[in-house]
C-alpha cells in the first residue's frame, strides 16, 4: 500500500516527457516547421503568380500571414473532413444557443429518460464516457430527482475552448426528500459545440466546512443500518457493496440502480422510526 505522497511522487516520475528542453526538436521540430511555413508561403506565391501576375505576390513580410492562411485553410479542411466522418449524435438545432440546449437538457433530465438525456452529451463527455457517471445518474433518476431552475441560465464564459453555462437550481429527489434533504446551488455545465462535455458543478451537498456529501452519507448509512435489522432479506439484496464503495455516492451497492427503486419502498418506514430524520431544512 502506498500513501498519497508516494503516489504524487510516482505520478511525477511517470511523466513521459519530464523535460521539454531535452526533446530533440532541432531537426524535425521548430526549424522544420518554420521552413515549412516559408515553403508553403512560396508555393502559394507561385500559384498566385501564374494567375494574377505580380500584384498578388505576397510581400516577404507577409509570409507569416500567407503561411498561417494556408495552415488555416488546411486546418478548416481537416476539421470539415473530420466532422463529416464523425458527426456524432445530432440532438440540437445548430441555431440553438447553449442556454437553449441547457434548458432542454434539464427538461429531458426531469423526464427520467436516461437514453434521451445521454443524447445531449458529446461522445467524449463524462456521461457518455464513464460508467460511474451513468450509474450515478441512473440512481438519481430512479429516485425521481428533479432539477428546478431557480435562477436563469447564463453563459458565464465562452473561453477559447468551450462555453460554460451556469443555472441556479434547486434539486430534490424522493429518497433524500423523505429525510428532509434537498439542495440549492449552481449547475455549471461545460459545452463543446452545443453538446455537454462535463458537469463541473461544485458539490451541491457540501457542508459549511467544504466537505462533500457528509449529510448524504449519514443518511445512507443510517438507512442501511436500520434496513439490516428491520428487513435483513432486503438488506441482503440492496445493501452496499463494501468491496467497491462508490466514492461520491457512498452507501449504495455499485451493481444495480434499480436498488434505489426498492429503497424507496422502505425509506418512509425508516424515517418514521428514526430519531434523526427528517432533518429541518
Amino acid at each position, binding site marked *: *500500500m*502506498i*500513501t*498519497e505522497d508516494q*503516489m*504524487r511522487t*510516482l*505520478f*511525477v*516520475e*511517470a*511523466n*513521459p*516527457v519530464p523535460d*521539454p*528542453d531535452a*526533446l530533440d*526538436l532541432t531537426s524535425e*521540430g*521548430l526549424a522544420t*516547421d518554420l521552413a515549412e511555413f516559408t515553403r508553403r508561403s512560396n508555393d502559394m506565391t507561385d500559384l498566385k503568380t501564374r494567375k494574377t501576375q505580380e500584384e498578388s505576390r505576397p510581400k516577404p*513580410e*507577409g509570409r*507569416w*500571414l500567407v503561411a*498561417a492562411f494556408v*495552415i*488555416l485553410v488546411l*486546418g478548416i479542411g*481537416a476539421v470539415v473532413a*473530420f466532422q463529416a466522418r*464523425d458527426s456524432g449524435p445530432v440532438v440540437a438545432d445548430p441555431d440553438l444557443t447553449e442556454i437553449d440546449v441547457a434548458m432542454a437538457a434539464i427538461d429531458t433530465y426531469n423526464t427520467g429518460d436516461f437514453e434521451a438525456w445521454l443524447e445531449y452529451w458529446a*461522445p*467524449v463527455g*463524462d456521461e457518455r*464516457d*464513464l460508467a*460511474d*457517471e451513468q450509474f450515478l445518474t441512473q440512481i438519481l433518476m430512479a429516485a425521481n430527482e428533479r432539477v428546478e431552475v431557480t435562477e436563469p441560465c447564463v453563459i458565464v*464564459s465562452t*473561453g*477559447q*475552448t*468551450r462555453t*460554460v453555462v451556469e443555472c441556479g437550481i434547486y434539486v430534490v429527489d424522493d429518497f433524500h426528500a423523505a429525510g428532509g434533504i434537498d439542495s440549492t446551488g449552481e449547475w455549471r455545465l*461545460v459545452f*463543446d459545440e452545443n453538446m455537454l*462535455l*462535463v458537469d*463541473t458543478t*461544485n*458539490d451541491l451537498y457540501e457542508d459549511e466546512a*467544504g466537505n*462533500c456529501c457528509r449529510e448524504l452519507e449519514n443518511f445512507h448509512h443510517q438507512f442501511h443500518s436500520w434496513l439490516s435489522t428491520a428487513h435483513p432479506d432486503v438488506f441482503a439484496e440492496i445493501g452496499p457493496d463494501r468491496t467497491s464503495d462508490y*466514492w461520491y455516492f457512498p452507501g449504495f451497492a455499485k451493481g444495480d440502480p434499480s436498488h434505489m427503486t426498492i429503497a424507496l419502498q422502505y425509506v418512509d418506514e425508516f424515517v418514521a422510526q428514526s430519531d434523526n430524520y427528517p432533518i429541518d431544512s
Partner: protein
Amino acid sequence: MTSRDARFAEIYESHHRQIYAYCRRRLDADEVEDAVADVFVTAWRKIDDVPSDSQTLPWLYGVAYRVLLHQWRSSARRRRLSRRLSSLGVERPAIPEDYIVLNQDSQRVIEATSRLKPIDQEILRLSLWEELRHAEIADVLDLKAEAVRKRLSRALSNLTNEFNSLEKVAGNAVAQKGGAW
C-alpha cells in the same frame, strides 16, 4: 514582418517545446505533430486574444486540451478498429515511436490514472506534469480555482486507491501463479 507576425513568431518560439511536450505526454508519437499544428493555427487565428507574459502558456494549454479532445475521438475509433483487426488475426505493425518505455510502476500509474474521470486525469497532469498552479489550471479548464483544489485532492486520493487496487490484483496474480507451481 508585421507586429502580428512578430507576436506569433515570439509565441511559437517561446512555447513550441512546452506544447509539443504537452501533446506528447497525452498522444502517440504519430499524432503529436498534427495536434501541435492545430494548437498554433488556433493561436494564429486568435492572436489578438492571446494573453501576454505568464498567461500565454496556460492559454495555449487550454487550446491544446480542446484539440486533444477532438483527437481522442478519432484515437478511440482507431483503437476500436485495431482491436477488431486483432480479433480477426490482423495485427497493426508496431511503430517504435508509438511507445515511450515506462517502468512497471509508471505503467501502473498510467493504468490507474485511466480509471479516473477524464477531467480529474487532466487536473492531475496539469498540476504534476505541467506544474501549473490551481488558478492556472482553472483558466485552462474553465473551472473555479477552489473546484480545482478539491478535485485535485480527491483525484490524488482516488488515484492512490486505484493504484493500490492494481498492486493488490498483481500481487494476487503472482501468488496464484506461485501456488500453481
